[in-house]
């Protein structure tokens, strides 16, 4: 995995605030808001690191994370929402492989 520093301290604290407050408000909100909050955090983190990210991550961040707002809109159709999230999971796995030595070892 690349060892570039991509997150500033202020940005990290902002992300902590989002995660902590999301945990609290989730106690009072419908269960299906859980994925929404996690994806909001994903979107914020992506926005913070995009400019400093390497090419290996940039493709994932630009191609997929930027489409998260559209994914939120599909929440009322659970199967469609799940399919969208599955697609995001596949793409993040591809991104992990680009950062990993696994594929280098295989070639």
């Amino acid at each position: 995995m690349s060892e570039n520093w991509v997150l500033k301290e202020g940005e990290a604290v902002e992300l902590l605030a989002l995660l902590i407050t999301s945990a609290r408000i989730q106690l009072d909100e419908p269960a299906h808001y859980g994925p929404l909050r996690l994806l909001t955090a994903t979107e914020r983190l992506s926005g913070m690191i995009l400019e400093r990210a390497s090419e290996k991550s940039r493709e994932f961040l630009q191609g997929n994370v930027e489409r998260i707002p559209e994914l939120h809109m599909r929440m009322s159709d659970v199967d469609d929402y799940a399919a969208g999230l599955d697609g995001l999971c596949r793409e993040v796995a591809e991104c992990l492989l680009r950062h990993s030595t696994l594929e280098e070892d295989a070639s």
Partner: protein
Amino acid sequence: MSDAVLNNIRSRRVVREMSDQPVTRQQVETILEAARWAPSGGNLRPIRYIVIEDAETRRLIRLVSPGMFQKAPVLVLLCLNEEVMIEHSLPPSDRALLIDVGTAAQTIMLAAHGIGLASGPVTSYSKEAIRVILNLPASYSPEMFICIGHKAESTRRGMKAWKKINWRDLTHWERFPQA
């Protein structure tokens, strides 16, 4: 009811992406003056409005408000003032108090729409964090933000309807038949 009022009600939408275009103090005051006319149980007026225009305060509020997608130039926080409840022997659990929040919120959003502004309610925030950031008096309970601004040119946020409904789906006439 005039067509203008009905059209205002029908065309208002919750807006979750706003532009940087500012909102004038006069526009904010027009909206708050309209809110003063919202119905209130027993005419007790337990709601206090806190207006936040300062950019850094708005940024901090947004950081502890996971449901606030808008970067609105003006935030109005609707607080229940517990001093009013104590004065009138109302328990904080009295549901009529939240009805007051709802009528005030809808009045604010319709007033904003009526003068060409966009709005969106937000209830997903940490009350305790908001208390700290705004240095709220202990008697103020922060119940709802209304974000006010101008709709962004292109908006990608929203939520599709769970199912298509019309008013008839929501209405039952007269008594229910006996089981």
